[in-house]
């Protein structure tokens, strides 16, 4: 009981509460500004959190993550531009509702559905993470190797042009993770004789470059995009009849979102797309979808918010990130000396309970903040891009520099930012590259340990049922996009004929 109470007492600490509030304000602010997502913000703030203890650092990062998922809906509904990619589907019904003069009602429904889904996913997180950790407690290096391969295989279906390109980007990340001294033999690899390279590439400047600078350069394509902003008179809570219409959609969105969030590398965007399609498929009012359906709005919003809690489950229980934001949080935790994985649940249970408490408080607090402050937060959509993005560069440079007070890190950050920009132009996503760099160390270590256990006989992997199951899932993850693509092409052909 003591660790449980210790964990909960975290949110009673004024400093932590203050950080949660700051995180909620930052997360909401950046969630409204198109292009600046939670991944970029958490990456930019990582250096800042290095001076904090792990729990306050997490209070800041997690509250940003939770509120960002909610806030993307505000600009999606009022401006028809999603504040974050996961709010993309929200535009489909949120903006038509706003155009009908029901912006306040749409925001009210989005806020309530988001909060309910957020709480639902945290409850699943509270129950599911310790269960998964207990299972993972039995994992040895072969199982961890197979699990990491599975985690990396899931990038095949995330954004980008094709699954092979995503996997190439992830493998490129794995290769970059080998730079530095090999921990077993002490031999230098790809260091070009530079002393600074012997410790390996520093992950945080790379993440800042990939997520902040790449997005900054992508925004240069959109400087002259003119958006029509719809004014909102007041936030309106859903009526009883609204609740009766949206409860099924909210529940379905919450379930689908949490499940997709748990899958490694899959995030809110996929969750909201799947939930929206499923709810539309089963709805009695199909024709309303895309023209201002409150069910569609509730499904999209509940799914992208519940993916947040879902994504935290594999991150903490297995050390495999559930989304790009949790990948950044994982890097932050590791840099703080906290090693996520099943042992964390045994060794530092109070830390896990603190995370539960922070996420629950963030979700509940956002309900009040969203209902009272949405009208004021919406004013942020008026901030000119010309002022915003140069400031992001300034922050990215200071953030990268402040880690080790090295200008080399800043140049590395810029190099990866420019690389990320050109990668996206050629259909490669930057998220798999980041995941490859983050998971590279775990993959190599677990492979080497497995081979030691197996006395260099790789066929022994086949005698480990859990590892075998993960390999099977990995193959499924890699080949499922090809299979569904083939099915779609066949269906198109038969429709044409």
């Amino acid at each position, binding site marked *: 009981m003591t660790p449980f109470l210790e964990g909960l007492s975290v949110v009673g600490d004024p400093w932590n509460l203050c950080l949660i509030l700051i995180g909620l304000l930052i997360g909401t602010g950046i969630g409204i500004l198109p292009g600046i997502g939670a991944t970029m913000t958490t990456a930019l703030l990582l250096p800042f959190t290095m001076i904090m203890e792990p729990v306050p650092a997490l209070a800041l990062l997690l509250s940003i993550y939770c509120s960002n998922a909610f806030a993307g809906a505000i600009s999606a509904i009022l401006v028809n531009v999603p504040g974050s990619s996961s709010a993309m589907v929200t535009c489909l019904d949120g903006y038509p509702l706003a155009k009908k003069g029901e912006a306040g009602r749409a925001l009210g429904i989005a806020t309530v559905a988001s909060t309910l889904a957020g709480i639902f996913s945290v409850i699943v997180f509270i129950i599911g993470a310790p269960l998964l950790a207990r299972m993972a407690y039995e994992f040895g290096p072969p199982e961890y190797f197979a699990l990491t391969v599975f985690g990396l295989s899931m990038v095949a279906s995330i954004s980008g042009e094709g699954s092979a*390109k995503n996997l190439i980007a992830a*493998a*490129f990340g794995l290769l970059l993770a080998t730079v530095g001294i090999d921990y077993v033999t002490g031999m230098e690899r790809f260091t070009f004789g530079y002393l600074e390279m012997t410790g390996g590439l520093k992950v945080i400047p790379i993440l800042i470059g990939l997520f902040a600078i790449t997005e900054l350069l992508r925004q240069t394509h959109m*400087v002259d995009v003119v958006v029509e902003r719809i004014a909102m008179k007041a936030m309106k809570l859903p009526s009883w009849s609204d609740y009766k219409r949206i409860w099924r959609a909210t529940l379905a969105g919450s379930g689908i979102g949490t499940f997709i969030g748990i899958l490694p590398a899959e995030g809110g965007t996929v969750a909201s797309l799947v939930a929206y399609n499923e709810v539309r498929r089963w709805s009695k009012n199909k024709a309303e979808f895309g023209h201002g359906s409150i069910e569609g709005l509730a499904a999209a919003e509940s799914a992208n918010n519940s993916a947040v809690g879902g994504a935290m489950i594999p991150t903490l229980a297995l050390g495999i990130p559930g989304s790009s934001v949790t990948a950044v949080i994982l890097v932050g935790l590791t840099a703080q000396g906290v090693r996520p994985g099943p042992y964390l649940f045994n060794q530092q249970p109070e830390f896990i309970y603190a995370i539960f408490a922070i996420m629950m408080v963030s979700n509940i607090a956002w309900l009040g903040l969203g209902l009272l402050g949405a009208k004021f937060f919406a004013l942020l959509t008026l901030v000119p891009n010309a*002022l915003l*993005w*140069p400031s992001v560069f300034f922050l990215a440079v*200071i953030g990268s520099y402040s880690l080790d007070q090295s200008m080399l890190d800043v140049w590395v950050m810029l190099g990866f930012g420019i690389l990320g920009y050109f990668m996206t132009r050629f259909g490669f996503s930057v998220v798999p590259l980041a995941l490859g760099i983050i998971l590279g160390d775990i993959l190599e270590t677990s492979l080497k340990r497995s081979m030691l256990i197996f006395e260099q006989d790789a066929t022994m992997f086949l005698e480990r049922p859990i590892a075998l199951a993960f390999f099977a899932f990995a193959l499924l993850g890699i080949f499922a996009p090809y299979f569904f693509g083939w099915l779609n092409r066949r269906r198109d052909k038969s429709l044409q004929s």
Partner: protein
Amino acid sequence: MSRKRFGRRSPERGGLTALIYSDFTVAAVVAGFCAYAYYLSTRIGTVPDSLAQGMQPASYPQGVILVILLLVIGMLVESRTRETHIPEPVPALSYATMAAMIVSLALATWIDFFVGMIFFVVLCVPLWGMRRYLATFAYALVLAAVLYLMFGTFLRVRFPEGVLVNLLP
């Protein structure tokens, strides 16, 4: 506030652009990179078997390179059923912003950290369409002061020595 397009390029492109963005070109570049990375991996030292514990330091990166090559083949197979996607041209503003980033970082490295950052803001804000030069300069100064206070004073980050930084307390 005035917004003006900065050198927006024509969307019409010839066969060369299609060739650049084709998966075959991408595959060739990735394969070339793999060949170079493999060459570099052959220069990684070896250790006695007892120390290597069954896996030489170059074996793992070489395995990853092999996986990348297999995936390149997968990408080419995948591209047979997909049309080449040609993105819109890189706007001149992107190149200008990249150049401004490089110049400002060079200034920050060799002249003064804050001079480099202020230079970037003062240069980029008008490039991105906001032509209020005095207000931009004031904004750059305020931003630099706020970030210096936050990082230099509260987080005790020591910025590299330079013309401006040496004047600061």
